């Protein structure tokens, strides 16, 4: 497997600056998740690494080698797109075998069979191996696309929202499986998603993208516990971080425009009064929808809380985040 480096990579599409001097290092064997909303530049990075697009400025390096004159095929990367692309006239088995039959690889037939069986089991499609690709549901086709990447031993895996079309149960299963495959093979993964649970649970590193700029790069824990900006802080956490004007809880650092409070940064039973607007019981936890000086706050409390709508509960910030007017983190 390999290390992937982006060095000052810029990409324009017409007047749109899709990537703005992005520098990032994906260590060998890392599982890097690019996180951000539509248009942040996630997919553009994948396309530049794969060689489907070329940067306008800057360099992509794989294992230290500049990729400018290397074709996509020569880069030996396995890609999974959000839109599955299978050979419709082939069976699932033939689709999975195809990448292994390339003249460059010359994989022996018994190894191909073993590989396909193992991958099909992980992806829960063993019973569909002899179906035509066109006879599959969308979720099944997507699993076959993932399978086609996993049967290979490429330099790195590039995946673009591979789980987004699957149902919740399967997504949870495959999250764990992909992570296990990565741990077992030591493979390098560059993975695009806008799903924060996928990012938090699978990544060794998360790259947070905002309008073509890489604004933070670090472990999920670093980004959750030590976000550099209001934007980065808002990417992770359920319920979402509460953002209020800095002054609503009294004293605040000079220059602070807003205060950011995750549920665990709100102490209940001390401080100032807030009104319980709604109590939302999720089973393992209960969410409180509060109104504090005309601001909405959502926090978490004990599953069996006796609080009901209309009650008053005192709240106090505990080690909150402060952000300046531009959203940069102050403290």
């Amino acid at each position, binding site marked *: 497997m390999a290390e992937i480096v982006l060095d000052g990579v810029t990409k324009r599409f017409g007047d749109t600056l899709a990537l703005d001097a992005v520098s990032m290092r994906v260590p060998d064997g890392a599982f890097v998740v690019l996180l951000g909303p539509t248009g942040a530049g996630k997919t553009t990075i994948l396309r530049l690494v794969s060689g489907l697009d070329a940067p306008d400025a800057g360099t992509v390096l794989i294992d230290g080698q500049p990729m400018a004159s290397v074709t996509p095929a020569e880069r030996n990367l396995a890609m999974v797109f959000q839109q599955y692309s299978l050979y419709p006239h082939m069976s699932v088995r033939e689709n999975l075998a195809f990448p292994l039959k390339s003249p460059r690889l010359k994989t022996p037939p018994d190894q191909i069979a073993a590989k396909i069986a193992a991958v099909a089991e992980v992806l829960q499609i063993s019973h569909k191996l002899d179906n035509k690709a066109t006879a599959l549901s969308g979720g099944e086709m997507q699993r076959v696309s993932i399978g086609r990447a996993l049967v290979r031993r490429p330099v790195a895996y590039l995946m673009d929202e591979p789980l987004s079309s699957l149902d919740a149960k399967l997504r949870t299963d495959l999250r*764990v499986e992909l992570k296990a495959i990565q741990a077992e093979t030591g493979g390098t993964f560059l993975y695009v998603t806008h799903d924060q649970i996928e990012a*938090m*649970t699978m990544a060794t590193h998360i790259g947070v993208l905002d309008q073509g700029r890489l604004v933070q790069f670090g472990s999920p824990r670093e980004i959750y516990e030590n976000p550099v900006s209001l934007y980065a802080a808002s990417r992770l956490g359920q319920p979402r971080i509460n953002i209020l004007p800095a002054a609503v809880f009294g004293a605040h650092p000079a220059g602070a425009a807003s205060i950011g409070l995750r549920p665990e940064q709100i102490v209940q039973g001390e401080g100032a009064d807030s009104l319980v607007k*709604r109590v939302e019981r999720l*089973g393992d936890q209960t969410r409180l929808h509060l109104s504090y000086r005309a601001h909405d706050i959502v926090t978490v409390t004990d599953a069996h809380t006796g609080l009901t709508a209309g009650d008053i509960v005192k709240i106090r910030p505990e080690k909150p985040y402060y952000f300046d007017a531009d959203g940069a983190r102050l403290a």
Partner: protein
Amino acid sequence: MAQIRIQNVRKEFGSFTAVASSSFTIEDGEFFMLLGPSGCGKTTTLRMMAGLDLPTSGQIFIDGEEVGQKRARARDIAFVFQMFALYPHMNVRRNISYPLFSQGMSRAEARAKVGEVAEILGITHILDRPVGGLSGGDRQRVALGRAIVRDPKAFFMDEPLGALDAEFRERMAEELRALHDRMRATTVYVTHDQLEAMQMGDKIVVMNHGVVEQFGAPQDIYDWPATRFVAAFIGAPAMNFLDFEGTVGRGATSLRLGDAEIAIPMSRDGRAGALTLGVRPEHIHLDPDAAYRGEVVAVEYMGTTQIVSLRTAHGALKARVPAGQRVAVGASVGLRFDARTLTVFDAANGRALISAANEKVLSHG
């Protein structure tokens, strides 16, 4: 608005039983969830309440009146199917007022009514816009407006948020629930998403293979599942199941799992043989002194908490523990279970044994 009572309702399609004899009551003003996997009979149940399908047997009462064999238009129900099904050639106002004109309401009356509904939904400023250029959220509000404007006895919704992405779905779910809190209209809502059901519902019916598995308040169902199916379907990660051979006597307050003595709520049932201990992930604590052991297989960081996957002598377990706790993959750890939260299931039929803890919830059947 209305109370809806389902009594011994059954639906067969040829030799296939879509809904086995089912009974439950939806109280006036409730937000009521029909929850289950695809094919469980939840949509058929809703269609029977609406009069789109007629039950093979049994009765349906709306405000005390038996309507089981009456057609849909005689029931005064507003059905919200796909949230985005709007008339593309009409503007927002015409889309919302359409049902009123077909009821024969005057133009002035309809105008006032649409204004009122638009106010409730916060869409007054877009009333004269074409629906083509609207955002997904606004399209949904318009579709809702069309249902609300008729002042029906109840709203029926079949997976209205199913097609939306996660973040948007959560926002819309909050908005729907807030709307319900303002209007207090009886609402019956079909979903396969357990979180959506927990989040929005006052009551939940859980169905599986055409059978009502459990009926009650979300927290009661989560805490005290009547069956192993319900326990597995509600909650993420799902409840853990430890299969074992053993005995739980009437009055017992503990059971034997391998070499460990596990405290349980006092049993009102006596059972011997194949049993299953059910424990929720957040009720497992890593405790070096605990007799029951497991090996850490994986750790998933979730921000406030982390999910620890474990291997034990009785199968795989997932525990939810605080994110600050140090957990090493490969380590052997002691596992302590919250005694007052445990449920024991009869492995043969999947039903929960009655205990001092769950008898209140499960006694009404």
